[in-house]
């Protein structure tokens, strides 16, 4: 993921962010980072029960959750959130922040419906990069079997070699080679060169 432009502006002054972590000190860390980013409302939850209450009572813009809270209850919380149908927060961007992940939890983390994963230890720059990524993420949400969440395919590189593909927008016929010579650099430059226009 590319670094962020330091001069770019961000405005989180109206954002409503829910932080969920079993450790009060991790919550302090996340809350101080969010405060630095100018987040308007920060809700801190050290248990899934508190988090459930917040999800029901407020329209949220971002949830950051450590899934290891209460022995993996964070995964169940997110699964239930994505399946909460008409709820205002069902499809809100969710970032999972996790420390050490047990091998058994890797597939669970992938299938739980989060928008992105951030490995602890947290730093402000990594967290801001991920927040900007999830905000601008153009992936569709998909519902397939038990999974509801962002499409887990980040890249689309066309149908497999030798197959026509199954999507409507898969190109069925080969494109073939170019039938004209490539443009020269001068011709390309002329397309983007500012020109004086006489009216």
């Amino acid at each position, binding site marked *: 993921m590319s670094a*962020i*432009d*330091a*001069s*770019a*502006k*961000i*405005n*989180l*002054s*109206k*954002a409503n962010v829910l932080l969920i972590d*079993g*450790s009060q*000190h*991790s919550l*302090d*860390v996340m809350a*101080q*980072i*969010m*405060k*630095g*980013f*100018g987040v308007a409302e920060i809700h801190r939850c050290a248990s899934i029960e508190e988090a459930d209450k917040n999800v029901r009572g407020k329209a949220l*813009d*971002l949830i950051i959750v*450590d899934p*290891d809270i209460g*022995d993996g209850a964070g995964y169940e919380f997110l699964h239930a959130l994505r399946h909460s149908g008409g709820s205002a927060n069902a*499809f809100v*961007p969710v970032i999972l*922040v996790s*420390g*050490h992940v*047990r*091998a058994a939890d890797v597939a669970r983390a992938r299938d739980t419906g989060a928008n992105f994963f951030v490995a*602890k*230890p*947290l*730093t*402000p*720059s990594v967290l*801001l990069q991920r*927040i*900007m990524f*999830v*905000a*601008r*993420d153009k992936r*569709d*949400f*998909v*519902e*397939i*079997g038990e999974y509801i969440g962002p*499409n887990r395919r980040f890249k689309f590189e066309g149908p497999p070699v030798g197959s026509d593909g199954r999507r409507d927008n898969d190109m069925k016929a080969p494109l073939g080679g170019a039938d004209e010579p490539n443009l020269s650099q001068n011709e390309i430059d002329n397309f983007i060169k500012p020109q004086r226009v006489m009216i």
Partner: protein
Amino acid sequence: MTIVRKFTPDVRLEKMLAEPGGVSVARALERATGNLETIRETCVAAIDAKVEQMAMLAQSQGQGRLDAIYRVSNQVFGEAGTFGLAELSVAAHSLCSLLSTADQAKVPLAAISVHLDAMRLLRRPEIVGDAAARGAVLAGLRGMTKRLVAQI
């Protein structure tokens, strides 16, 4: 046949980020880093307390104590790294790896004690400035964890 439903939820966050006003990324990062400094002392003291909490758990006979040590060690891993205690974070990660082996009950108590002693050692002033000694402590832990994980 599997049915796939696709939809595009409305993400308010994108529009908010781009609204007029706000702060530059550089300023936001500077403020966040400054805010973390205000809680450094409290958090570092809490990390030290968590190492002692793990030592007490290791001495106890309670059921689920190994899971409890895993959880506390995972917290130390995450929190120590944020405050620049990288080696302590690595030691805590090594303990988590050891305690997440398939048969947790076979993890020798002595291996947990070695990790906790290493964490205490890494916090002592005389070793804080000695990169070689810190590296040796971590290399020892890595070797022991690798050997035990392969055996268990």
